[in-house]
């Protein structure tokens, strides 16, 4: 693990996976553009894109795992991975920042302004009130999602999962493989339960609260923020699940387990975003 003495750095040999990944994203991009314009071929392209992307992910990560098992990576490569993951998470933070920015803007500026005296002439019937009256052109009657039901349980689930993944980490560092596997399995389970409850919550919102993306400023920020977060939970759960499978195959040891830590960092990031969501979307 000494980084200072290492004079070699692993440079992978040529690989076709990036090109395959580009083909996948091209299909996904074009397919999505066609699909949102209700053109049938779009769906085909989307499916094709996803298939190619999966193929690429399996192939590329397969290569990386093989290289790791063959001992190609040492302290310096490990450090690169850590920096890389850190900056990737930073980019994700900024992506969420854009939507949080939109939330704060509509809550503190645009919705109150649309209901103020200066706008009475334009919208005489509109009284701004968060979360139930958030747009002068919105006729849809909806109810807001209560914070202290499912969302509170979900908060508990995610916080617990943060603890279980740390417990798994301790197991890994102390060479207790059983604790490692159990901790990871618990974390994956908690993630899956979170997703299930979120699904139930969305169903409830659609069918009983009449809340949709089109329900004005509240509905759109609610679904966009919780939706993108949910996608990240899904991704994090899949990553943790893959790490669990690798653990069961005997990968990783006390020193060499970047993939595990990356998954854990990602999980904590998803956790923190949720706390912000709980406070600013559900609660306040």
């Amino acid at each position, binding site marked *: 693990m000494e980084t200072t003495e290492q004079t070699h750095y692993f*440079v992978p040999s040529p690989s076709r996976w990036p090109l395959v*990944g580009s083909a996948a994203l091209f299909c996904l991009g074009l397919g999505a553009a066609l699909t949102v314009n209700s053109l049938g071929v779009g769906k085909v392209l989307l499916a094709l894109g996803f298939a190619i992307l999966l193929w690429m992910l399996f192939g590329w990560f397969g290569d990386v795992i093989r290289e790791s098992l063959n001992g190609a990576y040492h302290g310096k490569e490990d450090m*690169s991975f850590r*920096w890389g993951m850190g900056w990737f998470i930073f980019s994700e933070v900024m*992506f969420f920042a854009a939507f949080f920015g939109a939330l704060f803007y509509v809550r503190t500026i645009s919705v109150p302004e649309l209901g103020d005296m200066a706008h009475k002439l334009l919208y005489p019937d509109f009284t701004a009130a968060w979360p139930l009256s958030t*747009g002068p052109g919105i006729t849809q009657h909806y109810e807001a999602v209560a914070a202290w039901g499912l969302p509170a349980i979900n908060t508990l689930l995610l916080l617990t999962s943060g603890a279980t993944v740390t417990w798994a980490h301790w197991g890994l560092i102390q060479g207790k493989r059983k604790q490692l596997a159990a901790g990871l399995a618990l974390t994956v389970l908690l993630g899956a339960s979170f997703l299930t409850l979120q699904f139930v919550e969305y169903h409830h919102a659609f069918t009983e609260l009449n809340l949709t993306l*089109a329900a004005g400023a509240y509905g759109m920020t609610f679904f966009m923020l919780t939706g993108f977060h949910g996608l990240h939970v899904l991704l994090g759960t899949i990553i943790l699940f893959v790490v669990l499978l690798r653990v069961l195959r005997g990968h990783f040891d006390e020193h060499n387990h970047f993939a595990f830590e990356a998954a854990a960092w990602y999980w904590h990031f998803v956790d923190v975003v949720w706390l912000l969501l709980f406070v600013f979307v559900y609660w306040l």
Partner: protein
Amino acid sequence: MATVTDTQHAPHSHGKPSGLSRWLTATNHKDIGTLYLWFSFAMFLSGGVMALCIRAELFHPGLQFFQPELFNQFTTLHGLIMVFGAIMPAFTGLANWLLPLMIGAPDMAFARMNNWSFWLLPPAALLLLASFAVPGGAAAAGWTLYAPLSTQMGMGMDMTIFAIHIMGISSIMGSINIIVTILNLRAPGMTLMKMPMFAWATLITAYLIIAVMPVLAGAVTMVLTDRHFGTHFFNAAGGGDPILYQHVFWFFGHPEVYIMALPAFGIISHVIPTFARKPLFGYTSMVYATSSIGILSFMVWAHHMFATGMPATAQLFFMYATMLIAVPTGVKVFNWIATMWEGSMTFETPMLFAIGFIMLFTIGGLSGVTLSVAAVDIALHASYYVVAHFHYVLVAGALFSLFAAIYYWFPKMTGKMYNERLGKVHFWWSLIWFNVTFFPMHFLGLAGMPRRIPDYALQFTTFNEIASVGAFFFGLGQLIFLYNMLVSIRRGEPAPQKPWEGADTLEWQIPTPAPYHSFAEAPELEVAENGAIRAMKGGKHH
């Protein structure tokens, strides 16, 4: 451990792969850098053709060649392609080529991901260009894609949105690579406060890209959901606000202009000392100036929005913050001039472009400070004055610095010398016609001619004619550059290891052309400020 590594390296050390797959599956930073540079040049030409279409239409008042719809598409795609297809990839390509050579790294930190960063660009460019052919044509909302224009147009807009997503992924991955390479792969002795300014500039640029490209992704995602999924982010009916789009966009957009300027500053900080044969004046202050721009550039975005009816306090804040950011830029210009002071200067092509850069970028900077005065901007906003301003910083800034860089490092990259005469002709040609094209636009703007418009009032005719003539000659001149490159790569004079007397950074300590795998083993270095090499031990190539 070392033995394991050696067997790992075995397939890799067999020299260059050949044929098409060398480029398609490349993991070599030099190959990927070359791909980036040629791609960006191709984009520069296609964006340039659109610019010439614009100028052709504007040669005379009235509509001659294009309907307004198509004109707007040209304007939009010209901007998008120049920004995301030409300038940004060109800088990433240079960073790819040069960073490992300048800091003594074997390659970029993530060589495979590096390939992906590049190969995402052609599909994105294809999406953009193909959008001209779909019903409704390409996006026509301006490169800023302001709502509510962007929430209304046809599927060309959707293709643009997804192209931006893909280009964003590309540049974020490219930036992660740059940052990690600089932070983790510097050779022993190459400390942060000694490393080349180009490395500092790309480091801060990469950080800016990672911070703001996701925000742009968020902005266009909201446009997409407003268009197709019933949200009202930018629509007052649902509690949203078109102005919200401008805030989110310019939170990305202003750092974006520094993303296109900082690498240029880095390049100039090497070219000027080399040809003045003096170390860079005020290296440490350059580092701090660059870093402070990395912070300040997040606090000025609303200077693009003075005309939206912001509260006066906000206008004042953004006005003074913007003026503040001129200080670190002024520090840089001062340092470059101080570097030249009493230097023994020669004026090879890179130096000419560097000096041209300093003079014209300063003009662009001054018109920028003028625009930062909120009261003045109310009148000049969205006029040709703004077009003049940003082309002084983008064409005479970013683009000229790129030309300086290409001429400067051409010998190291290709092993050949470029044709100096043609280089000089290219410079003077570009300098003259650039000014003929863009200087009159100041007058047009001050006289009230709006930008993004295919037709104009008769009194603007003369200056528009001058600008159009200048643009066509400027465009023609770029073929001199292309010709020079193509011929010199094949038949140029062989270049020595260090063709420039005053060059002292690491890339000049290794053979020319740079070996395919340079610094396969990290060298041990003794380094002075700005990456100047005092002594080097070890550092194998093959």
